[in-house]
């Protein structure tokens, strides 16, 4: 017993040190993440404050032209990226179109963010894939969908038959298959 312990004591000490180090590094990463979140809050606060000031100061000159950016573009691209990376381009556009079709359907939230963050609606939102590295094609596909192209011709559901565990979705009528996804009404 003693011999055994003697042989492994060094390893145990190493384990202990590495364990403590890993906890510290985990905490560090967590803190860094938290810090970046706090950044968002601070920025929001600043933005709101500065608008307040501008509204109070009535003699602000309004700018002739503001460069227009669709606030939903990146969010939509992120979901397309998380759900359909590696799918054909048209399949990516189709995912974007399904989200847009939902906003126009009475049975779903009316905004793109509402549809995307509906609990359990998209796998990539629940498992964090939505934050994966954004591929340029996803952004292009999101633009295409926002511009009104709809490869699904009005579908509001889709699933990957190899991955879904959800029995309810199978009861929906499949309209077309693009890549690995089935699109349904």
């Amino acid at each position, binding site marked *: 017993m003693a011999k055994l312990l003697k042989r492994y004591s060094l390893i145990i000490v190493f384990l202990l040190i590495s364990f403590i180090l890993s906890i510290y590094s985990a905490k560090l990463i967590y803190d860094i993440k938290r810090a970046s979140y706090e950044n968002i809050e601070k920025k929001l606060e600043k933005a709101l404050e500065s608008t307040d000031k501008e509204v109070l100061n009535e003699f602000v000159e309004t700018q002739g032209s503001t460069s227009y950016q669709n606030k939903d573009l990146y969010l939509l691209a992120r979901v397309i990226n998380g759900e359909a990376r590696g799918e054909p381009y*048209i399949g990516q556009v189709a995912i974007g179109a399904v989200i847009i079709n939902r906003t126009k359907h009475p049975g779903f939230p009316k905004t793109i963010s509402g549809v995307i963050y509906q609990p359990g609606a998209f796998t990539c939102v629940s498992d964090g894939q939505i934050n994966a590295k954004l591929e340029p094609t996803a952004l292009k596909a999101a633009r295409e969908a926002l511009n009104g192209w709809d490869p699904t011709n009005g579908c509001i559901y889709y699933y990957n038959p190899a991955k879904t565990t959800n029995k309810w979705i199978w009861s929906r009528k499949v309209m077309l298959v693009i890549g690995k996804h089935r699109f349904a009404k």
Partner: protein
Amino acid sequence: MSILGGYKEFRERLKSVRLWSVMAITLGILVIVALWGVNQYKGKANYHNYLTNMWHRAFFDMVGYVQNIQALLSKAEVSGDDRQRAVLYTEVWRNAFAAQENLSQLPIENNVALEKTAKYLTQVGDLSFSLSKQLMSGKKETLPQKQQLKKLRAYADKLSNNLNELAIEISQGRLRWGEVRVVGTSRFRRIAQNVTSSRMLAVEAGFKDYPTLIYDGPFSDHISRQTPKGLPEKLVNKEQAKKIALDFLNLERADIVNYLGLSGDRIKIYTFEIIPDRKIRDRTITIAISKKGGKIIWMIDNRASSSPKIGVAKAKENAKKFLIEKGFANMIDTFYLKQDNTALINYIYQQNGVKIYPDMVKVRVALDTGQIVGFDATAYYMSHTSRKIPEPAISEKQARGLISKNFDVQSVSLAIIPLDSGKEVFTYEFLGKYDGKYFADYINAITGKEENILEIIKDPNGILSM
């Protein structure tokens, strides 16, 4: 002897020291692990509580809003004052949308399965809003509209009762929300935890024989039942459709043609995926042909364009030539947008100088070769028909008097524009500037009512409306 004995003793002592230290280290590890575990557990419990609180808030808010809807609708039934009813209807609209928003936040496995409840809430709100607008323009509710409202109020009663029961059970702690996770939960736990989900789905079942609602709003059931006005009657089959597609793309033959399916509710559409050249596998063209009439509804060529060599003017020239070649006469360009090395140009139909905004075709031109890489005529085929355009009942001068004095008008024309409800109205279109920003103001050419205002955004990358 004594030295040897001393050494032995020393070794004994060393052994026990080592033993103690090892034990201490092990204990230390255990304590650290335990502390870490407790910390983790606390963190998890914190998050869980936080989420549960959010869900409870969403749920109880929703119950409150549904109760309000029920009360407001019954008041509207009793009230005899038009203005009072208009106010009540706007209140219903506000409550219904808030209720729907909260419903969509609930952690129900298959939140989308609550489609019917959500649809009910949307339509109650939408219908109330259109009724309030109707009342404000001086028209009372018709008898069918009143009956519809009565039916909807009955659903609100039922829904509110069911939700109340659930609310009581939840506040007594008898029901718990399930965790919204897809992986990692065993089936058994899922059933146990999702009592609330199954109870909510039971509430949903109450909407089985929910009526079809047709009214003047964007979420009315007639929107999804519109039939295309611009398609010829003749039906085509899959093979014919394939030939039409290849003709449209000016392809003699293609290496791979995949059929993706027949889809669409307003227009039945065959979709094909075409790879013109096997060697350039990346380039696929997806194209959709209507079953009725055999027309190309939309097309996407995924060829990535390289840096621009032509300007927007040349792109417009190409697009116009393309449209004429494909049989779209009298089209004028309106908005355009440069993105991804392409220009997306919107064309609308023009009849005797009147702009027909519903008949819209979108063309995407690659700015490197000038090739057409995208086409969408869904809107055009849905609405295009030979219209009888009446003479305006009010003059341009009268219409000009109806818009804001501060609006600096730069051009005026006649236009037919689509409304949210899918109807079309005949208007004067005033384009101009206000406070440095561009707007389009639409005044009904028959009644003088202001139908819509759009902000026009002009920047280096394009002109678009909002």
